């Protein structure tokens, strides 16, 4: 006997398959690490330095944080190393991000009186709590006094705060900053690790739980997170029963002939239709036709202002349900075909009707497959952006689609969506550098949200599968 060698030995196939898995894992981990590092690194309090420049450039000194370092090719030939400084103060000293040549940098001094303030408008303010040129003892005392006043003010609601904080620039200029404007403040150079950690997590918490400010470049993403979860849930509620019933028809009721086979192929092909086509269909059919008809029938008194004849949560959910329907049907049918014929026969032989057999035997057995379908549908639906732009997602929704006023769930409202939020931050933002870390953070949150939703379904499926497992297989 000769041992098979070469490709026939199977070693090659083993290496190929492990290689494919390794590559997939590597890419996934890289993506998540990148998203996490850039996105969630943003919330770590960056050290603030007072930078001074070569007098020949005429640049005044500035309080800033180092963001990035890169090498640029110059038009006149050669390369130049530059640093991206985040200087904030978009209102008084724009721009808030600037590239400076490393060669022009003279010194960077980390002043314990340096402070960063998150404001209600105009983005962060960076500066010093005491004038840079004063004697050290006076500076420390002034900085401590101002900080104490700020901390006291921050415990009050904004409208109850009065007075101003004097913020000094690196060039010695002073300007008043109303305390009511401040959201959060920290002195990164004077913080220990514990302070930094607690600030880090409180900023992440705020990012997740607060509405956005200033064209989405500041504040949180709560409405987008909420809108995404709500829309995915509504979508699941619609797509699951419809998909299951369709799969039941195809597998249990329809005569298995060429016609059914064609129907099945058609369903499979639907999964390959570009999602924007679903968006256009949703706009034309759901919004204009169905919504418009609803308006004419029930909300005629408010016309021409539309109620349902306009993009909204309901239409977006329905459009996505349509988009994920093929996935659901295919997964469920797969599960139905795995149920042994003997079980059906056993039930029918006991005098059960076809419906009773489906209800008591087939459906409980197919439930894990249905949940697989839900998992796939959620993953597909939650990540969709293109069709949503046409049927209900907006850059900024003033109200959540779920609130305390009747009827609580406002299906006609437009809503925010993480996927669209990412697109908006990345490509539509007036302030690209300010929005960039938020793009990464939002993307990571979207991934985490899908993982979480799926985890729930996976656990439920594992539970259902485990209930009546044959110990031998």
């Amino acid at each position: 006997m000769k041992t098979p060698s070469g490709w026939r030995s199977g070693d090659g196939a083993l290496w190929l398959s492990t290689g494919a898995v390794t590559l997939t894992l590597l890419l996934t981990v890289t993506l998540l690490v990148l998203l996490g590092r850039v996105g969630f690194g943003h919330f770590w309090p960056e050290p603030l330095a007072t930078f001074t420049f070569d007098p020949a450039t005429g640049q005044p000194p500035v309080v800033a944080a180092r963001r990035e370092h890169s090498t640029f090719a110059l038009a006149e030939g050669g390369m130049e190393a530059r640093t991206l400084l985040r200087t904030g103060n978009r209102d008084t000293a724009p721009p808030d991000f600037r590239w400076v040549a490393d060669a022009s940098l003279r010194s960077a001094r980390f002043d314990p009186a340096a402070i960063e303030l998150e404001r209600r408008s105009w983005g962060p303010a960076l500066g010093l709590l005491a004038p840079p040129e004063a004697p050290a003892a006076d500076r420390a005392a002034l900085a401590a006094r101002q900080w104490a006043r700020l901390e006291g003010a921050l415990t009050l609601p904004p409208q109850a705060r009065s007075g101003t904080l004097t913020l000094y620039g690196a060039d010695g200029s002073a300007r008043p900053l109303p305390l009511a404007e401040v959201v959060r403040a920290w002195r990164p150079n004077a913080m220990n690790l514990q302070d930094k950690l607690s600030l880090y997590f409180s900023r992440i918490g705020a990012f997740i739980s607060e509405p956005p400010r200033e064209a989405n470049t500041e504040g949180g993403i709560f409405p987008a997170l909420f809108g995404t979860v709500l829309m995915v849930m509504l979508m699941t509620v619609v797509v699951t029963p419809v998909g299951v019933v369709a799969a039941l028809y195809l597998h249990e009721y329809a005569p298995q002939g060429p016609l059914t086979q064609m129907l099945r192929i058609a369903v499979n092909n639907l999964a390959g239709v570009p999602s924007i086509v679903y968006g256009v269909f949703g706009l034309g059919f759901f919004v204009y036709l169905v919504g418009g008809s609803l308006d004419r029938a029930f909300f005629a008194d408010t016309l021409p202002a539309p109620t349902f004849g306009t993009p909204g949560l309901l239409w977006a959910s329905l459009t996505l349900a349509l988009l994920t329907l093929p996935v659901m049907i295919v997964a469920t049918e797969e599960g139905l075909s795995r149920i042994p014929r003997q079980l059906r026969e056993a039930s029918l032989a006991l005098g059960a009707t076809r419906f009773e057999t489906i209800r008591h035997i087939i459906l409980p057995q197919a439930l894990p497959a249905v949940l697989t379908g839900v998992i796939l549908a959620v993953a597909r639906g939650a990540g969709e952006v293109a069709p949503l732009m046409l049927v209900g997602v907006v850059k900024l929704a003033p109200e959540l689609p779920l609130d305390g006023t009747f009827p609580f769930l406002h299906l006609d409202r437009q809503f925010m969506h993480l996927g669209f939020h990412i697109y908006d931050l990345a490509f539509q933002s007036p302030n690209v550098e300010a929005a960039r870390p938020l793009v990464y953070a939002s993307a990571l949150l979207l991934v985490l949200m899908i993982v979480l939703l799926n985890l729930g379904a996976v656990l439920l499926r594992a539970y259902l599968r485990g209930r009546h497992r044959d110990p031998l297989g």
Partner: protein
Amino acid sequence: MTDIPTLTFDPADTCLNVEQLSVSYDGKAALREVSLTVPRHRVTAFIGPSGCGKSTLLRSFNRMNDLIRGVEVTGHIQLFGEDILAPEVDVTVLRRRIGMVFQQPNPFPMSVFDNVAYGLRLQGLSDQRALEREVEWALRSAALWDEVKDRLEASALTLSGGQQQRLVIARAIAIRPEVLLLDEPASALDPISTLKIEELIGQLAEAYSIIVVTHNMQQAARVSDYTAFLYLGELVEFSATDDLFTRPQARQTEDYITGRYG
């Protein structure tokens, strides 16, 4: 073959009466003009080589063949004088009167209790006391009660193959059918379990008319009162089991039971 006399029974002792039954699948004949009568409260065995139509005949009695596409059935079957092939017959009612046990043990993936209670619940019995009483009765009748009485809530799939088959029999008799069809009930089981099933068949014959399909001639000889031999879709011989195995009338029967083919 018409020269081979088949058995007939007094109408009062006749359970099923089959007349000129032909079954074909997609035009391919599986049964050709089979006529026989099945006695009441006796064990009748159908034997024959694979593909002889014995399972098709069995599945005609509770109209499980209806589920197969392209099936065509002609002829008549009467259950205690009622035509059961008539289109207006409610098959769910028919299947409650004629229970069936399949070759592979096929308990539902539910608890032991729920398996036996399934048919009862379908009939609308929901009172827990009554259910418990009926389930115990069925399990006792299937000689399984002592083995499972402490684990009624355990999944039926944790039982052994032989126990599963007796559970399936309990499930079938729980709804108190008049006839019990057994389609090679022991062919997937070990010898000990087979023996238990055979003993059970003997006990059940006191209360039910039993038809058992088997390709195991010794089994047919052991458990049945009457035996029908089918070959290539036709009924070759039907007589008392002792007669069929000791004095076969037809040449084909003799060849089969002596092991010359099949």
